[in-house]
């Protein structure tokens, strides 16, 4: 039967069509702009109506003006740029240190029965502690310089990497293990050619959580331990009740955080191209 033979439905007969609401059909960029516009609109209304004091919540306009001011200051390399540079260093060193310790401990815990039975319980115990509370100790040990902030940032970021790595190493199935055994693979070959690649999705999940934590660690360290970083600028601005400044500094910091997170996602896309699940946080 050819297509022409299929009789057209008599007029008036309904054809069932799946209905998708207009809000779900919006292109992503438009949808995001829409949410942003609604958010700023409500914010603007609230501040204009005088519901909140401008010391507590600045208007969007004030915030934008300060964003431009801070941006100019950063571009011209005045005092804010060195502050940002210090915080960036803390984040970078903290992340590198967390990866170094996290991968080592993760492999120890994930690969050896001893590590899993004797070391993991302690790691879990430490992980349940409020890690920020260790800040005064790091400051006492390492002083008010960048070192104590790096330590706190790394301390917070290490655990997700350990857990991600250990879970990743455990994710290889019995068949893969048996196959490697029949091929006469050494323990190192099994680790590097099978277990680590198999575990990359979990490892990257840990790295993404760590990327968020490392920023929080660096800024908390600066709040509590002074220094000359971006966190100190925020602290000073808030004591001066310069709320627009606090807002714009936080927005610039979030850009740093997003850049770090985005880098991890980008690396994940390159190395874990084979993983079926969507890359979390990397949807586009």
């Amino acid at each position, binding site marked *: 039967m050819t297509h022409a033979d299929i009789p057209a439905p008599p007029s008036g007969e309904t054809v069932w069509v799946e209905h998708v609401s207009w809000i779900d059909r919006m292109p992503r960029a438009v949808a995001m702009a829409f949410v942003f516009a609604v958010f700023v609109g409500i914010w603007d209304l609230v501040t204009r109506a005088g519901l909140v004091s401008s010391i507590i919540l600045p208007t969007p306009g004030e915030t934008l003006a300060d964003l431009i001011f801070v941006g100019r200051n950063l571009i011209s390399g005045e005092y804010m740029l060195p502050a940002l540079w210090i915080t960036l260093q803390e984040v970078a060193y903290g992340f590198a240190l967390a990866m170094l310790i996290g991968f080592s401990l993760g492999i120890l815990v994930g690969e050896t029965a001893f590590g899993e039975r004797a070391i993991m319980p302690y790691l879990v115990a430490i992980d349940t502690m409020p890690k920020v509370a260790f800040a005064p100790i790091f400051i006492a040990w390492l002083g008010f310089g960048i070192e104590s902030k790096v330590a706190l940032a790394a301390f917070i970021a290490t655990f997700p990497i350990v857990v991600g790595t250990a879970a990743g190493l455990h994710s290889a*199935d019995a*068949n*893969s293990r*048996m*196959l*490697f*055994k*029949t*091929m*006469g*693979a050494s323990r190192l*070959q099994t680790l590097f*050619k*099978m277990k680590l*690649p*198999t575990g990359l999705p979990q490892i990257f999940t840990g790295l993404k959580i760590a990327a968020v934590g490392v920023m929080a660690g660096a800024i908390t360290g600066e709040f509590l331990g002074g220094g000359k970083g971006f966190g100190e600028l925020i602290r000073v601005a808030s004591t001066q009740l310069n709320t627009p400044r606090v807002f714009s500094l936080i927005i610039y910091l979030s850009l740093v955080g997003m850049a770090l997170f985005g880098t991890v996602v980008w690396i994940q896309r390159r190395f*874990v*191209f*084979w*993983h*079926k699940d969507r890359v979390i946080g990397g949807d586009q």
Partner: protein
Amino acid sequence: MLNAAAIPRDQSESREIVYRLSGVSKTYARNAVHALQDINLTLGKGSFSSVIGSSGCGKSTLLKIMAGLIPPSKGRVVLQGQPVTGSRRDIGMMFQQATLFPWRTTIENIVLPIEIRDGKKAALAAHEPARALLELVGLKGFDKAFPSELSGGMAQRAAICRMLITEPAVLLLDEPFSALDELTRDFMNMELQRICTSRNATAFLVTHSIPEAVILSDVVYVMKPRPGRVAEEVVIDLPRPRKLEMITTPKFGALVEHIRGRLDKETFI
């Protein structure tokens, strides 16, 4: 009346022995379970043998011992005159799952055993024979495809190539096609026969399917559990090459019936 023991064994006796198990037992000390008791079997060169039995009859244990993955508690396991004391390159193995690694292309998966045993350079040199194997199994041109682009049957074909790349003396097949749909499975069994015949391979198959065991094998070992032992050795004297149409012949039916009879009720308790 079919008397399996009376069937002459000329087929396998004229062959050179590749694999010999004598008096192999396996006891798990922890719970004093006799997984295997006094297993004796020989695989002649180019022969196809199957072992069939319910779950828990020790088939997997037997296969693991033959692959050198676990040691027997008693007995001798000899492949090509050398006792099996660990994994060996002259043992090829295939599982129910293809277990191809998704970050490697098909050809990189196939040369993995070479990469593990001889290093990256040798693996690269093995790409040429690997491509020939791909052609043998009907996957020509799929060398650069990733496993996610292969169907279940194609993935098992690639797994066959990976098993053959080290030119093993014996192929140990652990229900290789049981995860495939029945149509693909029948077809793959015929492909397996073709590949084994063309390479004069010695194969040992573990399966749950009586018709599969009968259509492929020269000898079927019927196993019973507690303790795991060979209850009977059934010689399958259907002419070769075997064809799927043989399934409907009275002789095939009689063989299947005979084996089914041996797997009596006690087996499934």
